[in-house]
């Protein structure tokens, strides 16, 4: 644990090609005040920090964490203050002990890559391949994807590294402690998934969203149903299909319907062989579970 007198870890939060969504997700963190007691945020684009954007290009000290929000771009015209983004990022990357890619854009290129695929990538990754503009910094980079990322994911990683615990990284440099789980794990609709009962349609609390409504929960690495969003909910809990935003292929298209071949979902749950899937669903489909066919609260209401 950090004692209050210990040296605070120094953070610089830089923005690349971004919508600022990860900053606003960070602003939902419930331990905000404590965060500032433990960390020294030297620069952030939105807050009144010690440094301004033009001080960064003159910044020569070593520091602990470079957090990048947004994709990286090699376009020299893309400036932060008076310096090109790429030059500024490189300068700071050299001085940082760790680089954290905050969100899917910084991790893989994300949504904005699609407009300028030549110039825009993540730090180390360009979608699934290790062709990011700054791949040489792989050994000090941790990816924390999500669109946006969950603030607890970011702060958990910061806290781990601050006490000298290196997270176990997967093939996309994501901490397994957070991303070995699937968005599907802990979903309150799981019993419907097991018995292969899809929602009647959007707007129902009963039923699974995977079979017909395009939910990517079973194929998406994320702790969304373990560490709840805004401390209260998750997409699947509210009734929205997971859109796979933590994966390198985000954003996919046709997101709200399940693509099928011969009435079998084109993408099966992560790591489940087709034969196993067909065997198990074949059996579960043979049963009609009355309890799961009913409305949870009032079965007489609203059967449109």
């Amino acid at each position: 644990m950090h004692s209050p007198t210990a040296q605070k870890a120094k953070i610089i939060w830089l923005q690349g090609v971004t919508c600022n969504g990860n900053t606003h997700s960070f602003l939902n963190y419930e331990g905000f005040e404590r965060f500032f007691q433990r960390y020294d945020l030297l620069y952030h684009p939105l807050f009144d920090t010690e440094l301004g954007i033009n001080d960064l290009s003159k910044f020569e000290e070593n520091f602990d964490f470079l957090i990048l929000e947004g994709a990286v771009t090699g376009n020299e015209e893309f400036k932060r203050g008076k310096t090109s983004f790429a030059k500024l990022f490189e300068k700071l990357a050299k001085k940082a002990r760790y680089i954290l890619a905050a969100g899917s854009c910084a991790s893989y290129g994300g949504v904005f890559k699609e407009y300028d695929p030549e110039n825009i990538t993540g730090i180390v990754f360009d979608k699934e391949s290790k062709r990011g503009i700054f791949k040489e910094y792989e050994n000090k980079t941790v990816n924390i994807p999500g669109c946006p990322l969950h603030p607890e994911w970011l702060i958990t990683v910061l806290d781990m590294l601050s006490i000298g615990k290196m997270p176990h990284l997967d093939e996309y440099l994501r901490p397994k402690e957070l991303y070995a789980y699937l968005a599907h794990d802990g979903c309150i609709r799981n019993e419907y998934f097991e018995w292969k009962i899809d929602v009647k349609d959007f707007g129902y609390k009963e039923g699974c969203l995977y079979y017909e409504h395009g939910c990517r929960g079973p194929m998406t690495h994320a702790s969304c149903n373990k560490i709840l969003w805004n401390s209260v909910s998750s997409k699947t809990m509210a009734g929205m299909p997971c859109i796979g935003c933590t994966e390198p292929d985000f954003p996919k298209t046709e997101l709200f319907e399940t693509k099928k071949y011969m009435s079998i979902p084109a993408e099966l749950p992560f790591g489940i062989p087709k034969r196993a899937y067909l065997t198990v669903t074949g059996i579960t489909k043979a049963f009609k579970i009355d309890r799961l066919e009913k409305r949870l609260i009032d079965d007489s209401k609203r059967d449109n």
Partner: protein
Amino acid sequence: MIVKEIIERIEGEAELDFTYKNGIIENVKIKFPHFRGMEHIIEGKSAMDALVITPRVCGICGHAHLIAATRAMEDLYKNSSNDIEITKKASDIREITLNCEIIQNHIKWFYFVMYPLIRSIQKGSQEFISLKNKKFFEAQKAVVQISKIIALFGGQWPHTSYALPGGVMCDPTYVEIVQALSFLDEVYGFFEKNIFSDGVEAFLSCSNSELISKDGDISLFVKNAYEQSYEKIGRSYDRFIVFGENSLFKSGKVLTTIVYPVKTKYVTEKTQTFTYSKNVYYKDKFYETGPLARQMLLKQPLVREFHRKLKDSAITRIVARVAETALLLQKTRDLLKCLDIDAPSYIRPKKNIHKISGSGIGVVEAARGSLIHKIEIKEGLVKKYEIITPTQWNLGNGTKKCPGVAQKAMIGLKDKKLAEFVFRSFDICSVCTTH
């Protein structure tokens, strides 16, 4: 001589190029340096993908983009003679979540963007660092609470895509309703403790002189402006426009306090040479959009009184944003209490969007003003997507003879800090402006 100023601590980055003559700002160019090509990213994709892509225009008001995209598609159904309907329940839930997004925006703007600047132009002020200030953290706590309400219905905030043509995806129970009401109570408490000492209801029925006589940060702002005689700066054309409607907001334009109807067909965009943002006009004229415009249309008494005394000054704009926060808190509480949870959340349109060709316009009131999405599809694929954001209305660059809204508000000032104060009173969002 031209002095370039980079404006930081806003949503994104802007550059102001001031031209001075005899120590007075004679002209100012507003530049937004970054462009992400959001409209192009959507083109060629399936129409429903707009529900996922467009919120990523902006991290602070992405939810308004979701609702605008949804409405544009619903309009497309209607225009192509296809049935589409949504229940009052679905429209109320959308309104609740969008109201909450506007409230969180206004709190952030008030405490993260305006408060430090106003404190630093106060007489005898010390260097102000917000990260060492209790206010900053209390405001963030209120923001956390209000965002939770969006998450209860939408799963998360930012960037939920829980609304779609035909309704919403959630199916709330009384549990979510009472949780939402309790989070809302916390924000009411924050308002009373920090913004206005007599609380939400009292603020909406107070007068200019009562406001100044009380405690709280809005009273401090206004008092400070009067004491240092900058209460009248930041005036512009005094022309207002609102396109979006819901159970609170009304559409129309206001000229010398008289209200006229508006039609989106008279809205035009024009590219500029030195910045990525496009100008936007109504019948070739610049108009101000946003909370002040909405309150002028609603004839909110306090805002109207400020307007009578100070016209469309920066202080009137600030008071209007606070009044809107109070109004939306009240409205959201009412909507939550009256929500009919037994009605359907979603009615599936009879025809799949993949079988439809046509176009539609979706208009919604976002935190900074009217947001317009235009979609054109061919058999479900997006042929053309256009987004006109509120900040484009307020921050366009005109000519010397006919400057844009924020330009006009800054021209003639002597002090750069006051110009920045005026600029920020419009609540700048550079990511939206260029998208």
